[in-house]
């Protein structure tokens, strides 16, 4: 059926594992994926634990739509406490690992404790093996995956970390095949547990609870997918189509956000990338092949996605597409989360260009914007924690504190570098970066509705209330788990189509207000996790540059604007002025058991 009701709970310290049951009451409250991940983390992670200790659980989670016929429902979710923000984090990844987890008979994995030696976890349906992984230490992500496939068979699905995760780089990612769980530093969490890889093979069948109902939904859904011009755009150009869109909007960040246009944007646009694409690829069961196998002179990659073009292109002043493909590959091979890596490198480059860091400070590298040769050297230093790389591995905010420089142009919120959508121009994104429970990402409060002028562009009016609806919507989407790339087809807020999907997958009869309540509950639970960690309104901030330096087109988001949007957002959610959920809100959301936590 769409959910098994059990997770594989692995205690690495004790080298024991067992089934961990999640009953239907919890599923009805939190759905799956993001929601149940937040529930499990809140329950299993004690207050104030070190994210890089065995006490921090790592939860790899599927959603009820995964492994079913629903198109664009291929992603899985990873939840933990972030070593970058010291708060709640979650990340999503396409490919095939999530479905295989479901086919092995598990809704997810809960990993606690830490191993004494480097291990590789292998799962074959109900059987679990903790295998020695010393021979994989230091290896690149593609090499690790290839070795595992040679040993266990080409059909296994893999999830690995690179040298960055092994060396506890705070923004290390997890790689699955050629895709990444990029945000939150969960590669470092896995590295702290000394888990180099997880492989899985399953042979069970996910049977829909009501096959006829699901098939009817899927038929109508598929038709609407193919009709939509936005999907055609995505299939042809991938998410890289966003480059010129944002360039003409004056919202394409460059040179560590000193500018919001990039003079070489056309060279690294979706249209230019198309010339390098040799194959369009899709995730498991997806009918929208938005992944682009692209080749450069010396390598290939899947992508770069828009965020990769931002992080390894515009942000660091790189307008060379071959170099961009090469850097995209290198970050994946080293297991570095791309958005944050780009943010850290761009910050170091601005320090260098302003003479705050000199050549000696950065191990002899020439860190002028656009010098990709030395960026590659720097990435290796970060991943292996060598020299200046060891400091930058902490992230730009911590590095600034260690070095005592560059605080004026940090582009961070909650200790994490911001993603590639403009918080100066896009007000929902400004608020989204400030309040998102996992730090400044573009995937919780989404920018698309404003970047496409469906709601007024660059205008803060009502954006607090609208952003609440966006947060509720993505909480549901990320819990049933279908890809956010379907947002144009399914809708940019909760609607009848999403309700129909949830009801068809679960064979439920929810009403819209029930579904909305689930989204509110999930987002509020994430917030509660952060409140328990001591987060207050003070953490819901924006970088100074966004508030004080206007872009070329004159866009800026002031502290006053942010304050107004924050007040409106908190009030819409039923939180107090400090951003703490009120007791009556928890009771209204059937979370009364948590009242004493606030």
């Amino acid at each position, binding site marked *: 059926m769409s959910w098994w009701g059990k997770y594989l709970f692995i205690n690495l310290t004790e080298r024991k594992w067992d089934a961990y049951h999640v009953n239907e009451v919890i599923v009805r409250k939190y759905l799956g994926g993001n929601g149940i991940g937040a529930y499990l983390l809140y329950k299993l992670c004690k207050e104030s634990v070190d994210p890089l200790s065995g006490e921090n659980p790592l939860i790899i989670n599927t959603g009820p739509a995964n492994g079913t016929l629903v198109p664009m429902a291929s*992603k899985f979710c990873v939840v933990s406490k972030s070593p970058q923000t010291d708060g709640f984090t979650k990340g*999503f990844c*396409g490919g095939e690992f999530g479905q295989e987890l479901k086919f092995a008979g598990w809704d997810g994995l809960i990993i606690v404790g830490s191993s004494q030696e480097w291990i590789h976890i292998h799962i074959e349906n109900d059987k679990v093996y903790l295998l020695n992984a010393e021979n994989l230490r230091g290896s690149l992500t593609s090499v690790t995956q290839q070795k595992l496939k040679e040993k266990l068979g080409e059909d296994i699905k893999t999830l690995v970390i690179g040298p960055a995760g092994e060396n506890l780089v705070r923004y290390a990612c997890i790689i699955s095949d050629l895709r990444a769980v990029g945000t939150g530093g969960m590669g470092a969490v896995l590295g702290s547990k000394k888990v180099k890889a997880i492989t899985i093979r399953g042979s069970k069948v996910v049977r829909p609870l009501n096959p006829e109902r699901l098939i009817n939904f899927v038929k109508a859904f598929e038709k609407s997918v193919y009709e*939509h*011009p*936005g999907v*055609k*755009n*995505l299939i*042809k*150009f*991938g*998410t890289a*189509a*966003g480059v*010129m*869109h944002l360039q*003409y*909007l*004056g919202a394409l960040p460059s040179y560590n956000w000193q500018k919001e246009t990039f003079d070489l944007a056309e060279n690294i646009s*979706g*249209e230019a990338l198309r010339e390098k694409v040799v194959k369009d690829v899709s995730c498991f069961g997806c009918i929208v092949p*938005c992944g682009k196998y692209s080749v450069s002179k010396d390598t290939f990659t899947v992508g770069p*996605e*828009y*965020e990769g073009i931002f992080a390894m292109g515009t942000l660091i002043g790189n307008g060379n597409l071959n170099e961009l493909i090469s850097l995209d590959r290198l970050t994946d091979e080293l297991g570095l989360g791309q958005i944050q890596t780009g943010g850290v490198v761009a910050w170091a480059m601005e320090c260098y260009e302003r003479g705050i860091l000199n050549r000696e400070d950065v191990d002899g590298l020439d860190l002028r914007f656009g010098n990709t040769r030395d960026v590659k050297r720097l990435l290796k230093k970060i991943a292996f924690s060598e020299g200046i790389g060891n400091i930058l591995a902490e992230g730009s905010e911590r590095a600034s504190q260690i070095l005592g420089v560059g605080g004026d142009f940090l582009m961070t919120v909650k200790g994490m570098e911001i993603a590639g959508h403009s918080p100066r121009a896009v007000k929902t994104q400004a608020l989204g970066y400030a309040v998102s429970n996992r730090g400044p990402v573009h*995937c919780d409060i989404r920018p*698309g509705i404003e*970047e*496409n*002028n*469906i709601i*007024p*562009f*660059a205008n803060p009016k009502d954006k607090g209330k609208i952003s609440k609806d966006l947060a509720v919507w993505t909480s549901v989407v990320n819990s049933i788990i279908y*890809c*956010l*790339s*379907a*947002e*144009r087809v399914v809708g940019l807020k909760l609607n009848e189509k999403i309700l129909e999907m949830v009801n068809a997958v679960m064979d439920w009869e929810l009403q819209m207000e029930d579904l909305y309540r689930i989204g509110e509950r999930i987002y509020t639970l994430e917030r509660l996790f952060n409140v328990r960690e001591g987060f207050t309104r003070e953490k819901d901030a924006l970088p100074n540059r966004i508030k004080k330096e206007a872009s070329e*087109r004159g866009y800026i988001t002031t502290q006053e604007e942010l304050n107004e949007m924050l007040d409106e957002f908190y009030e819409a959610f039923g939180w107090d002025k400090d951003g703490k959920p009120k007791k009556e809100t928890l009771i209204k959301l059937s979370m009364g058991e948590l009242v004493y936590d606030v």
Partner: protein
Amino acid sequence: MMVRLLGYLGYIAGEQIVKIGEVTSVREVLNEVAKRKGIGNLLYSGDGIWEGTLFILNGRVIQNLEEPVSEDDELVITFPTAGG
């Protein structure tokens, strides 16, 4: 005036930049562009324009399709894109 067709629009039109003459409003520009093979269905859904299709006139996002245009203007038409 110059019209830039980004992404799939430009791909289907076979050119990313098209010149259009004797138009006085953004709506008239659209009507002219839509006459090109394969473009009409990409711009229009039923009686209206696909939600999220964006019009940027001389660097400024416009709300109103009756906005006047002149010979020296540049209009960018771009599609919604999404990604996770």
